[in-house]
């Protein structure tokens, strides 16, 4: 009970922060709209999908992948800001459940991801994207994304704890997360990439998650013709990836946090 309440209090606190920090807020509101329009109208005009379909139908799942993956940097930045400020010492002298600092952060970022994906979906819908497999299947598609984002938040939490400050957390986060999102099937079909890149994209968790969502949305999924196991079983692969990332990074973040806050 105690732990649940502490987590709820800190989740609320972090959401309040996001509301008040214009930069963080624009990352999950303005940026998704901008990216969606830019990619669909600028890149989309030059992309021909193997197997057919329009680019906007193909792109929405990819844009979810891009926005959600990069927005998980917020976890690293937020946690690093807390750890480098005085408020963490206040938390440490209170009789609260200590890991609630991490759990509250990850839940706030998960809720932010829900907002971000809603904005991408609404923008997509406005310019012609349609989920074709029904409501439940569409929700499952979003669920796959949100689980992956939540797992990624714990990896980013480790980065935030290890980094020297919010700026360096952001810098390092960008270098890791942008390639992770881009070297995948998210925004272009992978069939014409160089062989090495093709192998990387086939095993990139972002590709599995994106392919899974495309299947669940009933959108064009050119990766379905690729032989690699994750591309043949994208839903199972993305769930496995998410669980594996969580299983490694959630305990690691807890350990690193305890080490960082012991002196």
């Amino acid at each position: 009970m105690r732990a649940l309440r502490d987590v709820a209090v800190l989740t609320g606190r972090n959401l309040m922060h996001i509301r008040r920090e214009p930069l963080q807020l624009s990352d999950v509101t303005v940026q998704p709209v901008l990216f969606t329009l830019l990619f669909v109208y600028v890149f989309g005009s030059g992309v021909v999908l193997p197997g057919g379909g329009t680019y906007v139908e193909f792109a929405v799942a990819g844009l979810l992948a891009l926005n959600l993956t990069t927005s998980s940097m917020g976890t690293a930045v937020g946690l690093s800001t807390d750890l480098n400020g005085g408020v963490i010492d206040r938390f440490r002298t209170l009789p609260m459940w200590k890991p609630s600092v991490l759990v509250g952060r990850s839940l706030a970022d998960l809720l932010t991801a829900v907002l971000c994906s809603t904005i991408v979906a609404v923008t997509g819908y406005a310019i012609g994207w349609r989920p074709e497999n029904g409501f439940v299947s569409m929700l499952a598609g979003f669920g796959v994304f949100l689980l992956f984002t939540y797992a990624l938040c714990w990896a980013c939490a480790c980065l935030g704890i290890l980094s020297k400050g919010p700026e360096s957390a952001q810098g390092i986060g960008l270098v890791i997360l942008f390639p992770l999102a881009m070297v995948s099937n998210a925004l272009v079909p992978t069939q014409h990439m160089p062989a090495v890149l093709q192998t990387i994209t086939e095993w990139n968790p972002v590709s599995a998650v994106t392919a899974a969502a495309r299947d669940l949305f009933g959108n064009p999924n050119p990766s379905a013709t690729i032989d690699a196991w994750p591309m043949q079983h994208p839903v199972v692969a993305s769930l496995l990836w998410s669980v594996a990332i969580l299983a490694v990074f959630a305990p690691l973040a807890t350990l690193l946090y305890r080490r960082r806050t012991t002196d």
Partner: protein
Amino acid sequence: MASLPTGKDAVIEAHGLVKRFGETVALDGLSLAAPAGSILGVLGPNGAGKTTAVRVLTTLTIPDGGTARVAGHDVVRDPAAVQRAIGVTAQDATLDEVLTGRQNLTMIGRLGGLRRADAKARAKELLERFDLVDAGDRLLREYSGGMRRRLDLAAGLVTRPPVLFLDEPTTGLDPTSRVRMWGVIRELVADGATLLLTTQYLDEADELADRIVVVDHGRAIADGTAAELKAQTPGARLEVTLTQPNAGAPGALAPFVAGGVDLSHDGRRLRAPVTSGAGLATTVVRALDAAGIAVDDVQVHAPSLDDVFFALTGHASETLEAAA
């Protein structure tokens, strides 16, 4: 050194605390104790180990050696029990910049175990008590230094803890805010709290503390009431200002003083320690007059805590250095 109160009596007690940070020895066998319902002043210059001591006692720092108990619980073995009994006002603001004052206090109340309605009511009450009602709904980053310190103190009081730690609560405050803060601190003890207060201001320790521990280089070098500490210094100090410099003046003063006579650069001011100040001014003026030396001013100073500090540590306190 006076004996420490121990056993059931002490609500805050530390024995032989040691803490090293790399090569630096922050605490070097520090012992202290505060009986229930009292204010213990921990007095020392910057870098003496005061903040480290507070961090150990508030479970933030694990000591390399020694033991400490707060409200009957060991700070290392049972930090959660200690945390339930304490309120902390740290030297650096430990509040959330992006929340309002009210939200900060409510959040701390909730995390401290109050129910939502109670936490809100308590926040309102504290904002009123610390004259922050108007600023209550502004973000903390818009607060002035004085407002921030008041909110920081309020934050330590949210859960009505029986034991309070205030780390340099008036550092950086203007004189008016400082005196106001003193009033607030006195009220806390009147409410029955036990309080440990660190300060580098001797007048503050003198003003507030029931007992004072003087800390230097990570250890307690003296302990007692302000009066007891003052009684440990050799005695009073004589200061004479002459109308003209006079080479015979030190010799004329010699029979009345208890040590060497210190002469100022311009040769007009003489200072010397004395054993007793009673009737001394009259005697000194007569003797100098008899030697044909004209006197502008004679002062006999009773020992201050500054003198105590100087006598104990061999170096002046911050306030003395600032005045010099």
